[in-house]
């Protein structure tokens, strides 16, 4: 369920004019910007951009970029993009970061539907004149490259059919590999990066039935965990329980505020129109504090106001 709250009456022209007013004069009226954009869905945001362009012969996005700054500017910029375009930007940002964040790529491959992911890849090509696959391949090496390029290149079958025998045999293959700490085996990568989500979930269930421990717990083990193991863990989580995955990311993101707001922005903006409500429920269960309260307490300024609007905090 989405957390975004949109008003019953919508006029792209009115919104465009209101935004124009927010830019006029000294400084910018950030509150107005949040009040409008923080309560519009993707279709509406697109219409507002078009109306703004027609009325004022100016690109709303460029105007926002130049008038705003900091966390807030980045968040507003990403919010106003089309969802597929936003994901493309987030993927590119992640690839170029000095503290490389491969989780973004895993999310795209494992949480989005195959058709949604395809739209992201198209948007990426349009924006960056490279394919996502080439950039992921050239920004990675070794085992991580093997996994990520496979994940990013896949066009998963999206049917619900499950082959129980296959789930058995592949659960065993995964278990063997994990037991031997053979995490980067071709078979592990093959299974995780080519099977349909329905088939993989059946496999993970089978894993837990047979071996009493869930594959995610087994992957992390007891000793120090490599980056590659973390990537595998994220892959399984995203396919198996994305709400839990995102709730954890939010928790980590809030704790690291000031050093990493990218994760927080990403999770909230990419899920606000999808399943952020479910994610909030998991968040509360795990942390005994609501996401709304956590954001209110740990974050400040206009950035906070935007996030609160997106996560559905009623004033």
């Amino acid at each position, binding site marked *: 369920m989405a957390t975004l709250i949109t008003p019953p009456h919508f006029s792209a022209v009115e919104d465009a004019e209101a935004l124009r007013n927010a830019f006029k004069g000294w400084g910018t009226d950030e509150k107005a910007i949040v009040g409008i954009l923080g309560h519009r869905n993707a279709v509406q945001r697109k219409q507002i951009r078009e109306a703004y362009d027609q009325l004022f012969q100016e690109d709303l996005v460029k105007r926002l970029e130049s008038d705003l700054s900091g966390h807030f500017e980045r968040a507003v910029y990403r919010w106003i993009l089309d969802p597929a375009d936003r994901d493309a930007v987030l993927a590119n940002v992640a690839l170029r970061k000095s503290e490389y964040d491969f989780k973004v790529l895993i999310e795209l491959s494992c949480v989005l539907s195959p058709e949604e992911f395809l739209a992201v890849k198209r948007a990426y090509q349009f924006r960056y004149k490279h394919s996502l696959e*080439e950039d992921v391949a050239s920004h990675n090496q070794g085992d991580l490259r093997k996994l990520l390029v496979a994940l990013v290149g896949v066009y998963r079958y999206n049917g619900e059919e499950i082959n129980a025998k296959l789930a058995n045999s592949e659960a065993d293959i995964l278990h063997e590999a994990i037991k031997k700490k053979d995490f980067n085996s071709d078979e592990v990568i093959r299974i995780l990066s080519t099977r349909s989500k329905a088939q993989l979930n059946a496999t993970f269930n089978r894993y837990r039935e047979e071996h009493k421990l869930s594959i995610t717990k087994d992957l992390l083990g007891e000793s120090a965990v490599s980056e590659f193991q973390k990537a595998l863990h994220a892959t399984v989580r995203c396919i198996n329980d994305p709400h839990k995955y995102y709730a954890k990311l939010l928790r980590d993101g809030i704790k690291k505020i000031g050093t990493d707001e990218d994760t927080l922005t990403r999770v909230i903006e990419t899920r606000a129109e999808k399943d952020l409500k479910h994610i909030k429920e998991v968040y509360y269960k795990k942390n005994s504090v609501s996401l709304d309260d956590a954001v209110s307490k740990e974050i400040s300024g206009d950035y906070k106001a935007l996030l609160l609007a997106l996560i559905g905090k009623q004033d």
Partner: protein
Amino acid sequence: MTLNDEIQALTKAFTGLGVDEISFVTMGRKWKPEERQSFRKANPDFFPEDERHFERCDLEKYIKRLEQEFMRFKEVIVLWTLHPWERDARMAKEAIENGPEAYAVLVEIACSRSSEELLGARKAYHSLFDQSIEEDASLNIEGPERKLLVALVSAYRYEGSSMVKEDEAKYDANAIKNADKNKLLEDDEIVRILATRSKRHIHEVYKQYKLNNNKTLDEDLAAAPILQETVQCLCSPEKYYAKVLNESLKDGADEKIRKALNRVIVTRADADMKNIIDEFQTKYRVALSEKIKNTARGSYKDFLLNLVARGN
């Protein structure tokens, strides 16, 4: 026409590719029993004389031959009328099932189709086989080609017109140059470049490679034929296809190689047939249509010629 000529014509009628139906029709109209006997005697391969001097028919061989040759027309029609995506998906499935001798077909599909065509084939694969081509390929292709082939069929290459970066191409060309000659197929960089880069970029890599080494990329990859085929399909598909067509039209080519004739002509008729025709002429000094006229028969021949003519 003398009887001898007619007998020769009839023999010819089903010993090329396809069947010259009209010759058979004529036989039905004209030939008396003695003339049919002369035909049987003139074809001891199909009608071996036994110890009682009776030209019995090697039915199995004769029927098999006729079936095979009549089937060619049926096959090319079916191939032609399928949606291109379904056609590619079915050919890919067959290639995966047939093993290493058929992997070149996977290379053809992955490398000579446009990004959207390949994507369409992958969609069709979902519909037809309830699984993705990646699942099937990665599970069933064993051996060193697996990495390359799975990567190739998963490709979604950039096809826009932005400028190619020369320094990136130089870097990639070097990476290929430095690959371990004994493990070319499994070299991560080679797979990365050939399976993710845009075609225009790969053309530039080809160019840079030639500038900096005295040999061309495909020459240097000769140790791994499938890599050569990949580079050829990506950089100069008309050369690759002209060669495949020539092989398929040779006398005594085996059935597997013969199948390429239908596949190439149907899949390239509306693509780059004109370039293939030109290349064929340049390389083999004979028109493709001439070669087909000499080797194929009947309606099958006419259909192929029509497809080839679309390229003119």
